[in-house]
């Protein structure tokens, strides 16, 4: 069981990285990755929302959707968005410091494909509550890792002279491609014996 959970965690974090293997959460990956500190906070906010999502998805799948599978997509979106909004309000009341650090990212994240992607993948893989939470932690960790690495590269690249023709999205995509290739090296981590 523990080995299974470890596999789920590592697999979601590096082998099948949400951003670099599944192309999920690309908007923040390109949009909020020009400074490491911002990227890190965005990543942490993502982990937080992913954990809530995993819980919501498990709850809906177990208690509601077994009778009405056709409502899966709609209920995922609406329930996740509203839960995140409630949690946001709660944090604002209880911990203004935490809200200041993560709060501004929360509304951005709820419409992120990584969130819905996690709910759908966890459903397709038939994960239970514990497995789902570990999967969310791994996926969130992977998103944070990719964001921070990207931000590090972009911080450095600001000091370089870049030809105008490649500046912007084209350069970011090519950097992401090289990163994705580097992450391919993690494949096989669990099957060498």
């Amino acid at each position, binding site marked *: 069981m523990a080995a299974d959970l470890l596999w789920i965690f590592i697999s979601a974090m590096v082998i099948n990285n949400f951003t*670099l*293997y*599944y*192309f*999920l959460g*690309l*908007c923040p990956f390109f949009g909020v990755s020009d400074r490491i500190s911002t990227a890190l906070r965005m990543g942490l906010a993502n982990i937080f929302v992913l954990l809530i999502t995993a819980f919501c998805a498990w709850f809906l799948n177990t208690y509601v959707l077994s009778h009405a599978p*056709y409502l*899966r*997509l*709609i209920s995922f*979106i*609406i329930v996740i968005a509203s839960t995140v909004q409630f949690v946001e309000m709660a944090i604002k009341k209880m911990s203004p410091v935490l809200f200041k650090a993560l709060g501004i990212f929360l509304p951005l994240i709820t*419409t*992120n*494909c990584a969130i*819905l*992607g996690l709910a*759908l*993948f966890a459903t*397709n893989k038939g994960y239970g509550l514990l497995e789902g939470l570990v999967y969310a932690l791994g996926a969130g960790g992977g998103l944070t890792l990719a964001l921070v690495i990207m931000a590090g590269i972009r911080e450095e690249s600001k000091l370089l002279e870049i030809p*105008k*023709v*490649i500046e912007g*999205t*084209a*350069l*970011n*995509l*090519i950097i*992401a*491609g*090289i990163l*994705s*290739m580097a992450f*391919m090296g993690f494949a096989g981590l669990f099957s060498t014996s």
Partner: protein
Amino acid sequence: MVAQHKYLFSETMKNFEEAARYHEEFIKGLWKENPVFVAVLGMCPALAVTNTAINGLAMGGATLFVLTFSSLLVSSFRRYIPKEVRITTFVIIIATFVTIVDFLLQAFLPAIHKELGAFVALIVVNCLILGRQEAFSFKNPIRLAMVDALGMALGFTFALFCLGAIREILGNGSLFGVSLFGPSFEPWIVMILPPGGFLSLGFLLLFFNWLKQRQEQKQSLVYLADTVAEVAEKKDSIISLKRGV
């Protein structure tokens, strides 16, 4: 008689202008405001499922279905949807059509559905679709909204097909599953893997940037040549003036 002619003329002009407007709204999505190549929207499906041309076309088709019907509904009911809850209403409409297309694919094209997997359901978070509702369908009459949606969706499909074809040709040596170069071809496998998605879109954008830059340079060269010619002409006239001719 004259009045009638004038009326007819103005009507024709109006029709002509209207047709031009429709034409413009349709054509902009295909190239000038192409959702993938210019606006860089909906990257998740554009990169995730375009490892073959067929998958690109299938994803494009599914998006076309969802976008057209969502635009139709949003535009038809735009007077009755309160502004405060418009986004939620859009999401409900879009999610309904995505679920429908998901079921239809699963029932009638199970092989394609297996290839695309959860990415069919992820059409619901494609920024392109919600973006068109908010920016266009909610403000424009039905026919115009349909033209816009069709243009954008076809532009999206075209971009996905291009990416899929490039990646399949380079990464598998085939197009639509038909081998192009024979067995001696050594495929560039990484192109059909995730890094190939990033790289091929990156290099395509680079290529478009280069084309644009070259065009701008050409224009500025023409401008420069014109200016030089103009100055030279003036110089001639000044010289002739000085000579007192």
